[in-house]
């Protein structure tokens, strides 16, 4: 078992408004989310002495203006009442936001800081974005762009096609998972699709993006920010909110394959290695988990995580998500906040915030009764897979 189990905790959670496209400068939204997280933790901004984020935007051609296109640590040091300096900060370039959280947890345990603020600010410019615009293709793209193959939804489509073929999965089965997330979003006032229900027929009628991926298999891009305050378990116990103790973290560290080599078997191997680290470090297993927040930047990723983490046997997730098994009140509630599909694309921060809420009894109308253990598994899982396991007790 990992010596760090139960030594750190989530003490505060804050969200900005989530909008469909850019309306206010991203820096304003980040400040809003960070202030909310600090207030939620019951501390003063001046007590924040550590910062960590993954600042990059996940689409081709993103700008780099601090406070407008992205929110780096320096922007918060300048604009949040925490300075003029902090003890420690990290900006990770690899991994989704869990990698920044892992850095912060390690810094807390090393005594490098006492209260760490982690945020993820997502920009969503108006109009089309993220497309391939260049007439030339160098590097590994010379083997993909000339074939018109440049976007993550295409990679996910070929892996999902293979999954459907190998295991006989159907779009009707996926409709159960996607509409379950949308139903959960009706219990989450922060969710972009709160107030917009979806039926199975709505899902099946959606336009195709890259077959078999349809519009509603893709998460909803939003502009906004979510933030967490992390601290040591000792300090967290003295704060007003019940802590969510970190039982383990896990990260996929093998080389990222190119777009030519990005296949279903790789997703499964990487997911199993990431989840395996959570189980071995915590001494817990899939059967102990009361609620699972499983990444759904594209909906099939939730299947891969269900299988790779051992919640169901390989090849059976499409059947596992039927009959209310993953609904609130079911055997394993999944994406109880609506997922990225229905809350909005916060690149994993939404999943982590919800996992923390569930074990601290703060999930409101979507609370899983008596939740003791909850998991957040982020990434595709091949692309930047990482996870966190939380417990109610240290």
């Amino acid at each position, binding site marked *: 078992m990992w010596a760090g189990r139960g030594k750190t905790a989530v003490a505060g959670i804050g969200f900005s408004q989530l909008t469909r496209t850019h309306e206010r400068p991203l820096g304003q939204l980040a400040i809003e989310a960070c202030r909310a997280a600090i207030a939620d933790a019951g501390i003063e901004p001046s007590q924040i002495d550590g910062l960590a984020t993954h600042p990059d935007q996940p689409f081709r051609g993103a700008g780099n203006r601090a406070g407008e296109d992205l929110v780096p640590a320096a922007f918060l040091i300048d604009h949040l009442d925490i300075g003029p300096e902090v003890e420690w900060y990290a900006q990770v370039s690899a991994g989704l936001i869990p990698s920044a959280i892992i850095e912060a947890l390690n810094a807390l345990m090393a005594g490098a800081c006492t209260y760490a603020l982690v945020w993820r600010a997502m920009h969503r410019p108006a109009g089309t974005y993220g*497309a391939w615009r260049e*007439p030339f293709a*160098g590097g590994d793209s010379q083997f993909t*762009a000339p074939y018109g193959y440049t976007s993550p939804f295409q990679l996910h489509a070929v892996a999902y096609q*293979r999954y459907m*073929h190998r295991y006989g999965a159907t779009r009707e089965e996926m409709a159960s998972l996607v509409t379950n997330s949308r139903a959960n979003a009706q219990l989450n006032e922060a969710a972009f699709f709160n107030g917009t229900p979806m039926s199975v027929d709505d899902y099946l009628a959606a336009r195709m*993006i890259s*077959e078999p991926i349809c519009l509603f298999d893709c998460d909803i891009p939003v502009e906004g920010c979510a933030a967490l305050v992390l601290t040591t378990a000792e300090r967290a116990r003295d704060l007003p909110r019940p802590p969510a103790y970190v039982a383990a973290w896990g990260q996929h560290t093998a080389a990222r394959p190119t777009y030519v080599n990005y296949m279903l078997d790789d997703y499964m191997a990487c997911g199993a290695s990431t989840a395996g680290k959570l189980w071995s470090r915590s001494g817990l297993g899939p059967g102990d988990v009361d609620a699972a927040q499983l990444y759904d930047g594209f909906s099939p990723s939730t299947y891969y995580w269900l299988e790779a983490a051992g919640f169901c046997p390989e090849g059976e997730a499409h059947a596992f998500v039927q009959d209310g098994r993953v609904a609130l009140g079911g055997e394993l509630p999944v994406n109880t906040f609506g997922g990225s599909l229905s809350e909005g694309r916060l690149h994993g921060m939404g999943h982590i915030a919800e996992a923390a809420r569930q074990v601290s009894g703060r999930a409101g109308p979507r609370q899983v009764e008596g939740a003791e253990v909850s998991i957040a598994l982020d990434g595709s899982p091949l692309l930047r897979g990482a996870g966190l396991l939380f417990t109610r007790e240290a």
Partner: protein
Amino acid sequence: MTPDRPRPVLDALSRAYWEAAGRGELAIQRCEECGHYQHPPRPLCERCTSSDLAYPAVSGRGVVHSFTTNHQRNVAGFERAVPYVNLIVELEEQAELYLLSDLPAGEADWVAIGAPVEVAFEPIEAAEGEAIALPQFRPAGG
């Protein structure tokens, strides 16, 4: 509608691949030490780390590992080519040795996972203007 394809920028690792394709040969980077094929080409063998790498011709035969029909206009030059199908082809020389291909959705009735394919070469220009060719895959014996 034939797409106006982004043109490859040939570099030290990729030049042998593209020039071979221009001669009508599919040449895949292979480790001279352990025999491992890899694509895209890499500076070292990803299996044994040898730097003794060559680009021998391969059979050009394989099977469709997976595919997707793209409806989005996400690539400049392909706006009027949608919908088109991308194939992931696994070459017969080695498991998990993949290449891409594309074709109009209207010509893809034959496409299925496991369908046997063989290489064909579509003439294109590299970024610097050299005449090369883009390996494509079509039904075997078709």
